[in-house]
């Protein structure tokens, strides 16, 4: 009897599950057909009398580099709030400081299918996998549906992808890399302020005098942010106009430029011009020491203007000048460009609810007024140029504008041509190079091998 009841119960359960499945399908079909009918009806009604229904608020996930010490972090947050208020939409902001971890995180998110809807990211080789994997939408594709998208930008300056030469991102503010100077240290050490005419050898003399006066000449964490010194040291040995090209062999001209440039960093380290904890301290630690008047020079990007303004009340104690040049490079040949921009991910584009919101968000964030506010002293791709009231800027920001205006040339960063994982031997490995643990030529060869293996 029990067996019979058990069999009956199992059969009932099986049939009910099957029935549920069938109902679900039916329900789905019915729902779809009803939806279709409703849509048709609604369309008809819209065409005649009924006003358009208000759009439902949408939540979009946004990841940018406007965070931490970035000078525009607050501007970005304010703009996001204003957009949310204006549209009723919501932004889930997962912005983070731009460093190697951030890049790795973003790429890993894409690999894992957890990418944001809108991404402010680099447009160099770092974005290659996004383009190759069709993970982001091209400007052309967006313009097919939204013809006015990014129409306030110069297409030629938007930062085309190295993969196919197409534009995918809408830039906001460009950057330049310069040498920030703590004037109080220069005065206390009694040395000449470096300027556009200062040569590399003169710079070394200045550093030695600063060190003898009891200060650290250069604020840099070679353990975490060796990028800026990597760029300029190699630029000092690159052929004119060829800095932004990759070496093919260790022994070719660009390979030699890498070797000589990295050897110069090692030389600076051995001379004791970097902080004692340059191989163990973080960028925050060394920047703090610079702010507190313990170090004289800091090579960083234009975004550091805002960073310094946020870290000290005595912004007049700081200025920015050219990184002293060597060989064919004049000090006024600087590194800069428009290396980042807003992307719409394929995931958001394919989501009918998020598509319009993502387009609207980027259009809002790249309006002339906001771009001017963000860019101020840095380059933009705006057709109408920026509108900046210089009297409202700090002395440091004004120095930045002067420095960029006085540049004899501006070239893109070499690191933008090297994918993150291929930089490991010379970026993560910089402490090994300067301490002599790893041979510089071996490290360059490793980078070239990694590039070749891609």
């Amino acid at each position: 009897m029990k067996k019979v009841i058990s069999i009956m119960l199992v059969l009932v359960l099986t049939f009910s599950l099957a029935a549920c499945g069938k109902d679900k399908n039916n329900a789905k079909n019915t729902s779809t057909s009803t939806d279709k009918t409703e849509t048709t009806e609604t369309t008809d009604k819209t065409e005649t009398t009924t006003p358009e229904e208000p759009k439902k608020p949408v939540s979009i996930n946004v990841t940018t580099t406007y965070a931490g010490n970035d000078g525009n972090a607050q501007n970005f947050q304010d703009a996001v709030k204003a957009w949310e208020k204006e549209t009723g939409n919501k932004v889930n902001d997962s912005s983070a400081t731009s460093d190697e971890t951030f890049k790795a995180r973003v790429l890993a998110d894409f690999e894992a299918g957890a990418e944001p809807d809108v991404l402010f990211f680099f447009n160099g080789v770092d974005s290659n996998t996004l383009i190759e994997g069709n993970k982001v939408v091209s400007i052309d594709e967006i313009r097919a549906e939204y013809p006015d998208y990014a129409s306030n930008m110069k297409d030629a300056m938007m930062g085309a992808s190295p993969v196919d030469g197409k534009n995918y991102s809408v830039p906001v503010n460009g950057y330049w890399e310069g040498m920030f100077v703590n004037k109080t240290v220069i005065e206390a050490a009694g040395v000449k302020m470096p300027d556009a005419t200062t040569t590399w050898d003169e710079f070394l003399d200045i550093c030695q005098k600063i060190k003898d006066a009891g200060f650290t000449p250069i604020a840099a964490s070679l353990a975490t942010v060796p990028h800026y010194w990597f760029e300029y040291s190699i630029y000092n040995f690159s052929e004119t106009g060829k800095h932004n090209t990759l070496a093919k062999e260790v022994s070719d001209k660009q390979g030699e430029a890498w070797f000589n440039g990295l050897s110069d960093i090692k030389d600076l380290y051995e001379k004791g011009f970097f902080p004692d904890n340059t191989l163990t301290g973080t960028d925050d630690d060394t920047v703090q020491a610079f702010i507190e008047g313990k170090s004289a020079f800091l090579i960083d990007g234009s975004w550091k203007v805002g960073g310094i303004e946020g870290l000290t009340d005595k912004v007049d104690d700081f200025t920015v000048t050219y990184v002293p040049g060597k060989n064919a490079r004049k000090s006024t040949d600087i590194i800069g460009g428009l290396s980042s921009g807003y992307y719409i991910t394929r995931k958001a584009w394919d989501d009918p609810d998020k598509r319009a919101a993502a387009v609207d968000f980027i259009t809002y964030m790249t309006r002339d007024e906001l771009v001017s506010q963000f860019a101020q002293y840095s380059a933009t791709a705006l057709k109408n140029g920026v509108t900046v009231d210089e009297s409202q800027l700090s002395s440091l920001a004004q120095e930045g504008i002067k420095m960029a205006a006085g540049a004899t040339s501006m070239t893109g960063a070499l690191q933008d041509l090297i994918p993150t994982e291929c930089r490991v031997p010379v970026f993560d490995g910089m402490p090994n190079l300067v301490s002599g643990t790893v041979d510089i030529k071996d490290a360059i060869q490793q980078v070239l091998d990694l590039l070749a293996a891609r």
Partner: protein
Amino acid sequence: MNSNIYKKKTPIFVFLIPAFIFMTIFLYYPFIRNIVNSFQSITGLGTAAKGFNEPWYANYKTMIEDPNMRIAIKNTIIMIIATLVGQVGMALLLALLVDNIGRGKKFFQTVYFLPIVISATALGLLFNLIFLYDKGMLNQFLEILGFSGLIDWKDQHHAMMTLLIPVMWQYVGFYFVILITGLNTISEELYEAAVVDGATKLQQVFYISIPLLRNVVCTCIILAVTGALKVFDLPWIMFPKGMPVNSTFLTGTYMYYQTFNSNNVDYGSAIAVVIVVLGIILSKVANKLFKEKDY
């Protein structure tokens, strides 16, 4: 009715199956997949393998020659020893001391257990501030005591010690709670009898507490050994990327570095396999050495 429960095993299996399926999907399948990955060429997370390595065991061959892997294994062994002495040893000492005090037992139990509930990230940041080169708590303290010059607690000479102290401190409370629970299970009558026989407090500890705590200590040792092989979060916060000069890599942090920073996913998988193999071997050895006894 009751006898039916014991006779029929089917319901038990029904309840065991969901957990088994869960474990299969989320643990055993990924583990087997990871072993396969370690023989393939994978240059990005989530990207398809480009085929098998040539030779297929290339990653394991590289690992033998990789100086960073040697550093990672050496540091992990140091970590295991430090864990045994600094965590289990210290926890045993504290548990025996706390067990012998009358009042304040609860207070000390809470105090020693507290680090466990703080996230490793927060602890990492806390210790970063303590060991900070410029204006760190420790250097300021030394300055007050009259020492001149700053000490870089994260340089190559101090790095491992700076790494081990917070890791040991973090988990002392965990083993302390296990051991104090073990001490509570020892019958009071044994101590009373010992007192009647004239045993001192120290003799009670050596002849009653420690022998009867042996099995609990064995469990703690096995947990400590396997835990030390997996430790990742706190060391990574304090010494990311094996800083300085790759001298602080542990097997766990090196695996993460290869997978997420170098995008060398297949090599990271091979390191993960080695971690598991080491874990099994070491826990077997620990089991043999500290075999539990029936009393």
